[in-house]
């Protein structure tokens, strides 16, 4: 039986660009260049490696996002994923993590899966909770924040490097995994991969395909509300000195003046 892997990937505004909010206080995804979240490239990489090691496996990449999110899927396909699902619906605008996890979970169930692999966090929202929410919704084990992962005989195992300890984890499939940026560099798409990706299928689903009411998602269905957004005031320009042999002492003087010494 083939191993069905679904990788959740998010299309995010480029962190090195000018990220900002739209008038309705949602993340502006129209005016800013976007890309496949770098942290989700690690998820795609681990999915491809697990698939390569399996006798028979299929990697599906799944995104919930606006029209342009296709770019993220295309990138993942050119890395080597087999097919893609794009969930897009006007009513999704402004969905929070609880709503996003609902849409992803429904889509994952509809697609069919043995293993879900997510990134450790999205680079825009940075909550790092969607994988745990998917496990809760799907009713399967969560094996998250792994810096090493492998699948053998229907068991997923991996290492979770936490603050207090490093843990070795194990669970039976089906399961939800998330991987960190310590799990291994993601491959670059090859020319061949980029060409092949153009022919790979991208399925489009909307909320009605997933039997989700508009009221459960979007700004309307959101369980949280942003009241205000303010640009962080620019830090006042500091003192900058050039080291002419006394730089360390001058710095000590500054630290003393601020009562750190």
């Amino acid at each position, binding site marked *: 039986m083939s191993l069905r892997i679904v990788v959740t990937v998010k299309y995010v505004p480029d962190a090195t660009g000018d990220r900002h909010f739209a008038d309705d206080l949602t993340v502006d995804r129209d005016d800013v260049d976007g890309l496949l979240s770098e942290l989700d490239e690690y998820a795609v990489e681990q999915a491809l490696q697990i698939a390569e090691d399996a006798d028979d496996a299929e990697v599906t990449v799944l995104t919930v996002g606006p029209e342009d999110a296709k770019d993220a899927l295309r990138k993942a396909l050119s890395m080597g994923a087999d097919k893609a699902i794009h969930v897009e619906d006007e009513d999704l605008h402004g969905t929070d993590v609880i709503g996003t996890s609902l849409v992803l979970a429904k889509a994952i169930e509809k697609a069919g899966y043995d293993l879900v692999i997510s990134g450790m966090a999205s680079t825009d929202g940075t909550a790092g909770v969607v994988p745990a929410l998917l496990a809760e919704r799907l009713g*399967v084990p969560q094996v998250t924040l792994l810096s090493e992962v492998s699948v053998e005989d229907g068991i997923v195992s991996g290492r979770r490097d936490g603050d*207090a300890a490093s*843990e070795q984890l194990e669970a039976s499939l089906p399961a939800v995994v998330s991987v960190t940026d310590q799990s291994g560099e993601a491959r670059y798409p090859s020319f061949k991969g980029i060409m092949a990706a153009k022919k790979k299928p991208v399925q489009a689903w909307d909320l009605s395909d997933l039997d989700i009411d508009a009221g459960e998602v979007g700004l309307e269905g959101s369980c949280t509300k942003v009241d205000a957004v303010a640009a*962080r005031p620019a*830090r006042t320009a500091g003192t900058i000195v050039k080291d002419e042999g006394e730089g360390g002492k001058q*710095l*000590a003087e500054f630290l003393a003046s601020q009562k750190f010494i």
Partner: protein
Amino acid sequence: MAEVLVYVDHAGGVVRKPTLELLTLARRIGEPVAVALGAGGADTAATLAEHGAVRVLTHDAAEYADYLVVPKVDALQAAYEAVSPAAVLVPSSAEGKEIAARLALRIGSGVITDAIDVEASEEGPVATQSVFAASFTTTSRVIKGTPVITVKPNSAAVEAAPAAGAVEALNVSFSQKATGTKVTSRTPRESTGRPELTEAAIVVSGGRGVNGAENFAIIEALADSLGAAVGASRAAVDAGWYPHTNQVGQTGKSVSPQLYIASGISGAIQHRAGMQTSKTIVAINKDAEAPIFDLVDYGVVGDLFDVVPQLTEEINTRKG
């Protein structure tokens, strides 16, 4: 007065500082009721009482150590049902966020992660977050169910506020899913004797400019002269010069100390994401154009191999 659930992060009964900060925030909203799970839970009571916990709910079972996350969600849900709190506050560790999110989903609530402040308001608790690599500050609220909010370390002062802190046994029955993910082995981190990175008042970090694992000794010497924690950029971590647990930034730790000293770090957006909210920022870099200098209160353009040892020596001399 309404009660507020506070999830206690502790190591064998020793309460970690971020939990005490949560008690300060919880007292703005109502009376803190602490939930301390696992071995040593009851030993936390004295400290929690000193900082405002009116009750301390405890429960110990092997499941907390042997299985990932879900047993703790089951217990926090049991506490939620027993207390009917006005809000649930959880420390923003990787695990804390996962517990909080799953609880929120179960109880039909919204969740806010990584708050840096929480205030009471007529419309419920208002959480402040710092987003997009700390370039924006937002305030938001949970508008469905009981607010579940995770709070970052160093978000509030630890305050003494003596309360009863009565220990009560929590009744927990684990869900079928609790034993889904087995922890087959655990290697505790060795303590360096230095302060915890996310809790430290001063953080001294080194980057690619440190140029070698052995050279991190000069960063550590500076840190020790100030009683500081040691941080590293991802470039230094990826090069294998310093452990990943010390990485500061988007995919490492996010720190907000009184003083942050960056040596040989350029100041990429992903690094800034983890340190930009520090109160005072100091940098040493030989490139006057390095973006880190846009953030500093005091910067030295120079070679860190000259400046850092001189600084360390001067600090040690001044301390006598």
